[in-house]
């Protein structure tokens, strides 16, 4: 059980990092978008390892299903595939910032003494998430409604922005 989780974690982590690197390094935007889909999919697998079953399903539905299709649509509509995705003037500073951020985060993560709970949480998590979202006093009912309004505003805004005049 434990070794199986470890093996699947290392495979998923390697594929996730490799496909994320492919997204930022490939010159062909369409190939980059396909690797982004692979990256989203392996992140869903990492959610499964972390025993977050509902979020893994939501990840596949929202990111792999909806956002990836939207991004591929935008690539097709802007017809920039032949020009590729070259790096800008800020390539070296961006690399420096990224590496500096990575070094800082790794240092913080390694040097902190985490109070870890090792037992596996209850599954399935769906009803527990619903309880946390909608339970009266300390729930998230108001943020939930605001998120619904935000989604509606985003849909209307997107339609207004791309409407033919």
């Amino acid at each position, binding site marked *: 059980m434990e070794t199986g989780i470890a093996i699947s974690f290392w495979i998923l982590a390697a594929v996730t990092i490799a496909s994320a690197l492919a997204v*930022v390094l490939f010159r062909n935007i369409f190939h980059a978008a396909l690797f982004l889909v692979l990256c989203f999919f392996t992140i869903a697998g990492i959610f499964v390892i972390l025993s977050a079953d509902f979020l893994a399903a*939501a990840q596949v539905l929202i990111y792999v299903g909806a956002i990836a299709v*939207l991004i591929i649509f935008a690539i097709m*509509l*802007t017809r*920039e595939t032949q020009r590729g995705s070259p790096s800008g003037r800020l390539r070296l500073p961006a690399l420096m910032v990224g590496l500096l951020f990575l070094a800082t985060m790794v240092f913080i993560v390694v040097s902190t003494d985490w109070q870890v709970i090792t037992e596996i949480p209850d599954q399935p998590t769906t009803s527990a*998430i619903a309880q946390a979202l909608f339970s009266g006093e300390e729930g998230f009912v108001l943020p939930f409604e605001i998120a619904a309004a935000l989604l509606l505003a985003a849909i209307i805004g997107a339609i207004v922005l791309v409407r033919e005049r």
Partner: protein
Amino acid sequence: MVVGLEHFLILSAILFSIGLYGALAKRNAVVILMSIEIMLNAVNISMVAFWRYIAPALMTGQVFVIFIMVVAAAEVAVGLAIIIAIYRSRETVDAEQIDLMKW
């Protein structure tokens, strides 16, 4: 070797750095949006890892991930609409040529 909290946090940090590099270095606006999506997903991984290893009784970590997904979906929809609108009027999605509001 047992996989622990640190592994997931370092994976999340690596993904976030890759996304940060892509968002800063790339010139195509669609690729910049894709890099931002990678960064949001990295944050989601660390949220779920904290929920799993620090506070499994509180579901707040997972609830936050749901809200991040909602905001990411809204952000992508509006962002891509803006990119398509810019492409219609200026025939480019190169972030270095979209400099009308640059001083």
